[in-house]
Each structure stands twice: as structure tokens, then as C-alpha cells.
């Protein structure tokens, strides 16, 4: 019964976890901005979030594969549970095959930071609503 109370927090909690993972990926891009041969990566946040919340509720839609030759669907999560990373499209080519554009990465990092804080705020609001319902005070 308790999980029906805390179930309302699941969406934002999952969003928070995925935002933290995206923060890590973008930080890796920024740290490797000068490494020759490094390709900038990122993952599709909205797809990852919809798939993560779908697997928690019943009826996640995945292609059933019964033979080794069947191709798996392009899910947002890889087999190890982490989000499947995709390469960024290259803006300016560089001589050492590095595709990191520091300006783009910094903009995405700032964007992700604000959205992380927004998720925190929503989560806080939901917790406070629950607390006021539990204690009976408005």
C-alpha cells in the first residue's frame, strides 16, 4: 500500500537519475575536449525517460526476439542498463579527429543543470504535498 503513496514520486525520481547520468556524459565530453580522436557522445533524454517509466508500469513494448538473427529494437537503454549513447553530429571538423565543440557542450551542461534543479523542485513540491496530506496541516 505504501508504494501507492510513493509511486507519485517515481516519475521525477527517474528523471533526476537520468539527468545526473546526462550530466556525467557531458562532463566527460568537456574533459576530453583536447583528446585526439575522441568523439562527443550524448543520449536522447526524452526517449530514455519514457522507456524508463514505461518499464516500471506494466506493458513495456519491446520486440520479442526468438532467434539469434532477429534484430533488437533500438531501445534507449543498452544491455548494461545505462542509457545508449549516440554520437553528436560534427559542426566544425578538426585535424586531430576530435568532435567536441566546447561551446555546445557548455550550453548543454548549463541547460541540463537548470533542468536538474527543476526536477529537484518538482520532487520537493510533491514531497511537501504528501507531507501536508500525512500530517493533516495545510
Amino acid at each position, binding site marked *: 500500500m505504501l508504494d501507492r503513496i510513493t509511486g507519485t514520486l517515481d516519475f521525477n525520481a527517474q528523471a*533526476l*537519475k537520468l539527468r*545526473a*547520468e546526462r*550530466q*556525467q*556524459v557531458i*562532463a*566527460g*565530453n*568537456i*574533459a*576530453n*575536449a*583536447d*583528446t*585526439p*580522436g*575522441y568523439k562527443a*557522445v550524448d*543520449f536522447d533524454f526524452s526517449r530514455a525517460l519514457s522507456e524508463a517509466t514505461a518499464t516500471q508500469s506494466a506493458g513495456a513494448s519491446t520486440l520479442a526476439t526468438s532467434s539469434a538473427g532477429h534484430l533488437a529494437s533500438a531501445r534507449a537503454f543498452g544491455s*548494461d542498463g*545505462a*542509457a545508449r*549513447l549516440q554520437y553528436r553530429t560534427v559542426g566544425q571538423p578538426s585535424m586531430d579527429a576530435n568532435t567536441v565543440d*566546447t561551446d555546445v557542450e*557548455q550550453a548543454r*551542461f*548549463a541547460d541540463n*543543470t537548470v533542468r*536538474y*534543479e527543476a526536477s*529537484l523542485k518538482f*520532487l*520537493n513540491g510533491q*514531497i*511537501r504535498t504528501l*507531507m501536508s496530506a500525512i500530517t493533516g496541516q495545510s
Partner: protein
Amino acid sequence: MSLFKVFDIAGSGVSAQSRRLNAVASNLANAESAASSEADVYRAKQVVFQTVLQGKQKDEAAVKVAGVVEDTSAPRKVYDPKHPMAGEDGYVVYPNVNAVEEMVNMISASRSYQSNLEVMNTTKSLLLKTLQLGQ
């Protein structure tokens, strides 16, 4: 939690860039160190960066300095037989340090250093805010 790993990643970036600045400082300091022969003269050093995947997943990409390589271009020779360090043929050998390239390297390294530092500061404030969840 993933945000703690960001400290490792950004910290590795900061230390790699500071080693690059070390190399730049060494090169600029030794730009005029004369020697008698090509074998003894100081050669410009550069650091080589390499990605380090922590764990098996590709989303934890730290950076490390894989090695320090020496510039193999020919050093500068100046004909000055009266110089105390002149060799038998009268040439004094100076290092192959290009000051303009080193300054560009320094600007790029300091910009990357600042980016990584900003990542660490932002992550720290996010974690502190997360700790206050529910209060």
C-alpha cells in the same frame, strides 16, 4: 550516484590540463638554453592526451596524460664561435621552441581548465541542493 563520478571526470580533466601547462611553462623557460651539440640541446615537450573509460560503460570518459613526447624538428643553430658553449664547428645550438605555438597552447589549456573547473563547481552546488531534498 552519477553526479559523484562527475568529480572524477572533471578532476582528471583539470589535472591533465595542468600537466599541459607544465609542459608549456618548461618549454618557454628553456627557450634560450644553449647547448654545444644537437644531442644535448633541450627539445620542446608536448603532452599526449588519452581517454580513460572508467568501468565498462562509455559514459564515464575521464582523460589522462598518456605520455610526454619530444618535438623532433631540427633545433636552431646560430654561428657564433666566440660563445662559450660553441661546438667545434663554431655553431651554438638552441632549442626548437616556437614561442607563438606555446602561447596558443597555453590559452587553449587555460580555457579547458576553466571549463572543467566550472563543471566541478556546478556539480558541487547541484549535489548540495539534492542533499536538501524534502527539507
